[in-house]
């Protein structure tokens, strides 16, 4: 694997607003990268800077070692799937897809051949004479995809391409995109604000916030070892419990009655401990917690069940803790009742406060 795209110290300001703050990122050949973050975090600005629709204030963007920072979009070896597809309304599906090769100087017949191949890749070969206006969102999405891959770019940029689709179709397209990417072997950079979508499709997720990259890693790394409080909070649900550590490595949590324990590796003296709700057990009344389990006493505040699992919200020493249990809730768990929760300290992930 070699570096395909290298983003080096890229900054971009809109007046007083910092959209990109010294972005540094390398993307490998054939990787599926997701830029994830809340709206306004800079992910779309970064994508548009890579595509060339926006000029960074400083920094360098290189593809295959070639600096493309000053190149207009039409000279960059990449293609984009736009958020609202931007299919040309005055062209048929085939003409839309053949547009890329035609502009690259390919003759009419060959361009049509390539366009048909690309349409076959996305399963739309029967629709070539239709106009985009008369097609469903999912079909337009596929046309946009075919149009973007027909030129065989080294890199495909996708700007929230599934956001206009309904839930079911969206889930199916996520898997289809993943398969298509594996088949084509070209690198995808996919922008989304949906963390579940990101975790479904990404090889590596780039979590962004306020113009900065918070963390880069596989969905596993980002979920189990978030690098910052923001990442822990943004990805999935998390109990964030303040902690303090003494000089001898003993950790004390803000939930006062939790026993002390020792950190396995050196940590900052202060920070937050991340505890995922699925690692918190609701203990049966009477039965003692297992030896490795720490026990917490508290009061239930809410019980929310979605059928397949239940979230038990409770208050422990003034600290809200959410536990996730499989299936429907126990009958005695109602708001106001007391509850015993247990967790294994090895599931705690400590994020030191930067000093």
């Amino acid at each position, binding site marked *: 694997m070699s570096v395909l795209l290298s983003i080096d110290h890229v900054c971009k300001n809109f007046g007083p607003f910092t959209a990109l703050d010294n972005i540094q990122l390398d993307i490998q050949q054939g990787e599926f990268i997701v830029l994830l973050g809340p709206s306004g975090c800079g992910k779309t600005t970064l994508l548009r800077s890579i*595509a*060339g*629709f926006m000029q960074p204030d400083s920094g360098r963007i290189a593809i295959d070692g070639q600096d493309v920072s000053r190149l*207009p*979009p*039409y000279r960059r070896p990449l*293609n*984009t799937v*736009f958020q*609202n597809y*931007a*299919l*040309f*309304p*005055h062209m048929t599906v085939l003409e839309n897809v053949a*547009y*890329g090769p035609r*502009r*690259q100087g390919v003759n009419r017949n060959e361009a049509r051949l390539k366009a048909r191949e690309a349409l076959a890749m996305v399963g739309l070969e029967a629709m070539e004479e239709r106009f985009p206006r008369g097609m469903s969102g999912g079909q337009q999405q596929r046309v946009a995809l075919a*149009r*973007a891959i027909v*030129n065989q770019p080294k890199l495909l940029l996708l700007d929230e391409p599934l956001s206009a689709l309904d839930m079911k179709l969206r889930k199916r397209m996520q898997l289809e995109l993943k398969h298509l990417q594996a088949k084509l072997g070209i690198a995808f950079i996919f922008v989304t604000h949906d963390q579940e979508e990101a975790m479904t499709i990404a090889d590596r997720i780039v979590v962004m916030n306020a113009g900065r990259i918070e963390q880069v890693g596989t969905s596993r790394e980002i979920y189990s070892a978030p690098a910052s409080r923001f990442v822990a909070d943004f990805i999935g649900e998390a109990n964030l419990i303040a902690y303090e550590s003494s000089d001898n490595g003993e950790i004390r949590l803000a939930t006062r009655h939790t026993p002390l324990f020792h950190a396995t590796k050196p940590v900052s003296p202060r920070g937050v401990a991340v505890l995922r709700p699925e690692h918190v057990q609701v203990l049966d009344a009477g039965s003692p917690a297992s030896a490795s389990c720490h026990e917490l006493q508290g009061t239930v505040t809410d019980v929310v069940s979605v059928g397949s699992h239940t979230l038990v919200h409770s208050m422990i020493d003034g600290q809200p803790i959410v536990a996730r249990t499989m299936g429907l809730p126990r009958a005695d768990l109602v708001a106001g009742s007391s509850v015993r929760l247990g967790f294994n300290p090895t599931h705690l992930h400590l994020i030191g406060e930067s000093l």
Partner: protein
Amino acid sequence: MKRTAIAPALMLFGALAFFTAFFLAPFAVVIFASLTQGADQTFTLEHYIRVLGDQYHWDVILVTFRIAALTTLISLLLGYPLAWYLVRVVKWRAWRRACVILLVVPMFTSNIVRSFGWMVLLGRKGLVNQSLLETGLIDTPVRFLGTELGILIGMVYILLPFIVLAAGNALAQVDPAYEQASDDLGASPRATFFHVVLPLTMPGIISGSIMVFTLASSAYVTPALLSGGRISVLSMLIFQQYSSVFDFNYGGALSVVLLIFTLIMVGLAGRVGSIRGSQS
């Protein structure tokens, strides 16, 4: 229910009555006159035979539509870039508004006044000739008045705003995402213009052109004042028949001929536009 249906019906009736009284009825009178002769109003095609059988009339028809076509073409070539400038280049809103006002305000002035203005400017010793002579671009004054060139200058000046407004409106409605998509797919700015922007603004161009063409082919004041009596267009012949000769039958036939030729031209333009719009 019943009461709510009365108001729209009344409004519709009002509009229809107005349209019938001031447009359809006079038009019917013109057609009727063009097909009859004498006090007993017997049916005849004599006036049409007189119009179409005379080479002079064919020459006038040719001049009329040549001026209208050239006016449309020149207005388009000047107006589209101007519309582009106003919609795409100007970032400062106040300046854009000022430009649009400059464009529209002359329309509040009578055509007669504006055409007289051009007579002064284009005369042998007018501002245009003076400037050209002083800069040394010409040695002897150019004759504008009484030439098709002079009429063209006046017509383009008066009709340009229609194209700018129509094309500007069309340009403003093109989603920038289409141009970005084209750019992204490897099209140069030039290719993007010809394959994406131009086809997408074609409806605006066609409607603006049809407006200018019909107004130019039926214009009377500007050609009459700038022709200096040397050039005739159909509308001038018609005016003559109605106002000096008082031959309403013959004048009617000329009017109907002008109308039919204009409709044919507009129909052709619409067809050309729709073909280009769907194929490119």
